[in-house]
């Protein structure tokens, strides 16, 4: 099975976020970068699929030179080769200047040349969190897709052209569905256990191929970023006192009045 995993490089969890001078983007001058967490789970799922049978895992990412560290991390963890869609650090052709459709188009072009059996990507990104890239990509590639996937296995019938996936629904419900290949899945965090990077992996990664792909100029955005701002932090804590029945009554009243239940 040939699997392409599309990963995104995002700022580290604790990285301080500063709005840049124009008020419409994030200043990423001295940001430390890391692999988007849901994408890490997507990669892990791909590696486990490969380890259960024959196959190849190709990791794909778009972005400037710094993205190489994330691709190397993926290669070190076991991906076989990497595709790097090189975009300029800033300017009209940069990743930040493209909308979701534009980014998905970049990824789709690169994926088409590989004609994989399965495309995996994280459910959403830790930075923007739109959760759109995966499904738009499926549409562009003309592939059936499933979102919020926790695990993937080969179909019960043993048909190599079908897979069975477990999706997370609301309220503790799960959905098990079978679907044909090729397909695209967006992977939910926590469905499997991530592996740690090893010295051997890093050394092996040095001899693995990374192919650079030039990026075409960006198409015009369909959306417009009006303003970027940090969330206003408001924290009001009130501790209700008294016997339990009084507290319950007070709480019910407040919920009714202030939350509108």
């Amino acid at each position, binding site marked *: 099975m040939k699997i392409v995993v599309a990963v995104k490089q995002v700022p580290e969890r604790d990285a301080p976020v500063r709005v840049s001078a124009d008020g419409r983007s994030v200043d990423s001058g001295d940001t430390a970068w890391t692999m988007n967490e849901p994408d890490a789970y997507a990669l892990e799922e791909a590696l486990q699929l490969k380890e259960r049978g024959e196959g190849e895992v190709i990791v794909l990412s778009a972005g400037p030179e710094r993205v190489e560290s994330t691709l190397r991390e993926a290669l070190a963890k076991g991906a076989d080769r990497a595709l790097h869609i090189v975009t300029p650090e800033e300017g009209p052709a940069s990743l930040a200047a493209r909308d979701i459709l534009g980014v998905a188009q970049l990824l789709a072009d690169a994926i088409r040349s590989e004609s994989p059996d399965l495309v995996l990507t994280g459910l959403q990104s830790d930075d923007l969190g739109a959760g759109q890239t995966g499904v738009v990509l499926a549409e562009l590639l003309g592939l059936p897709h499933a979102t919020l996937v926790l695990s993937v296995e080969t179909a019960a019938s043993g048909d190599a052209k079908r897979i069975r996936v477990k999706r997370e629904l609301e309220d503790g419900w799960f959905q098990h569905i079978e679907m044909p290949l090729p397909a695209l899945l967006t992977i939910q965090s926590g469905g499997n*256990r991530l*592996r*740690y990077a*090893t*010295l051997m992996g890093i050394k092996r990664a040095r001899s693995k191929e990374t192919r650079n792909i030039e990026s075409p100029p960006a198409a015009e955005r369909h959306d417009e970023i009006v303003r970027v701002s940090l969330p206003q932090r408001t924290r009001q804590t009130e501790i209700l006192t008294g016997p339990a029945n009084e507290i319950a009554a007070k709480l019910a009243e407040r919920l009714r009045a202030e939350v509108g239940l």
Partner: protein
Amino acid sequence: MAAGSLGVVALASIRYVEPLYFSGVEVDVLALLCALSLVIFLWRIAPIARNVLRAKKDSGFRLAPVGRRLWDFVSEVLCQSKVIRQRPLPGLAHAFVFWGFLAFAVVTTNHLLTGLGFGLLQYTGLVGTVYFWFAAAWALLVAVSIAGLFVRRFLLRPRWLGAKVSIESGIIAGLIFLLMISYLAAFFLPPIGVAIKAWWWVHTLSLLVFLPIIPNTKHLHLLLSPLTVFLKRREFSQIPALSESETEEDFGLLAGKDITQIIALQAYSCVECGRCTEHCPAATTGKVLNPKEIALGVRGYLNALGPASELPLLNELRDAPANPSPDNPPANWLSMEAAFQCTTCGACEYQCPVGVQHLPIIVGLRRGAVNTGAWEDRQGTKLFLALEKQGNALGMSAMERDKFIEREQLPLFDGSQEYCLWLGCMGAYDPKGREIIADFARIMRHLGTSFGVLRKEKCTGDPARRLGNDLVFGSLAQSGLAAFSAASVKKIVAICPHCVRTIATDWRDFGIAPEIEHHSEFMARHAHLLPKQNGERIVYHDPCYLGRYRNVYEEPRAVVAKAGQLVEAERHHERSFCCGAGGGLVFLGEETGERVNYVRAKELVATGAETIGTACPFCNSMFRDAVSAIAGEKPPQLLDIAQLTARALPAAAASATIPETGQPPVR
């Protein structure tokens, strides 16, 4: 050949004698037997020598400083200091046997040469008479000692010797006894006659049988351990750098090809005394790990497969068990399960009288498993990912550290202060660790020492280092060195002995860190300025990484003595028992068997002291639960030495401080 004086004649009336005459046949038989004994000996030792010599070279091994090696040799080999100090009675008995052997070197050489017709010492001469009497005194001591050791080994049966005691060691003891008795017998016999001839031959045959037995038994230590002690790695628990080579990949001790000459030499030197086992916190609490069996496992592997084998050392990585132990029932000795139960407390390595350094071997086995990804452990993976992503072992957000610094108003290090106060993961994120840091900061302010903390700090990599993750350890060490260098730090002080050890010693593979000391050392130096309290009885627990690893025993005690009345636990100083946290184990979840921290906490509570004094945030955290579970209603207090000191400082010292500079208020 008249004696020098009448006195000597009188004394020599009872003296050692040798047969006056050997027939040609006797000489031939003797020569033949000597040659046979030597040939069998060489034939049996050759594969061992080959295994050691053909093993991988120790990269980075340096003989310098020879002076220190010589000193260790004199102390540990010639004076038998470790043998005696850690097990006085059997140790002394062993020392007598050893010194007796040295005295007998001359006697034995002379004995065989006499038989061949080239005797050196004339028993009738003055030198001969005196020397033979000297040797007789030793013979008596050796005979008594070896008999005592025999009784201990075969009748008293200390369990550390293992479930089965080897028969060879009984035979060897018997031979030694026979050698001594046959030597002493010669003092009471006429130089002519059947009796002296018979005893002479008994002595000779004992010698010639003894020699070929040596190579394949634990008695190989007679030959190897002096060399092993002289050649052992310089640092305590020194983890060698992985060799950088284009042709060969080094991930640690994965297979026979990774066993180095020093490890091979040490494995063959093991005398199976079980001191390592006796002091091991894993072996004594029902874990699989037994440090003695690790050494013997490597030996067994070398014997069976040789030093070029690619077959993995660890059971989980191969089809058949790596070492059914030679003298104990087969168990999972050489396994990932065992290797990852080590707390790296270093008691085994410290105790070993023949120079075996267990930690580089155990950590080496872990490296082999972790650096290749073979070790799959839920908690271990979580720890490595936390170190990779968050840069701290507790997996907390770095912002929590920022908040703590702000709340405690700790000054940031800007290059103008004398000390960089290293918080460490426990000091920055753990509630109790933070209390310790806050109190130590108060002490520094009270003393008027300027200090600051780094804006950003990552783990030193200690748990990754001990668990064998060279990738994570290397990147943390490099980023730590870069942070110190960027901030122009000259001196560091830390509350955690693990941080101190790792920064001072383990980071050396990547560069030289600024000078670092533990807060106990800092406080002991300023002890005269610290308040004297008429406090309660305080039992001090030696952390492994401060005591055995850094040789700091008295400094924390000096601090404790200022705060109250110092009490010692049953095991203390270099014999102190681990809290169970080290070697990354604190992050690996529940252990099998008895809990190490409970065992140690019981010992501390048993002293009846009102307070337990600790000097390591990990020990402190390990005892926190254990003490209340054990001591019940009135558990002793648990305080770090910084807290013991800070509690007597005037309250104003904290609040009146100017936080930005860490300067104390004007008095």
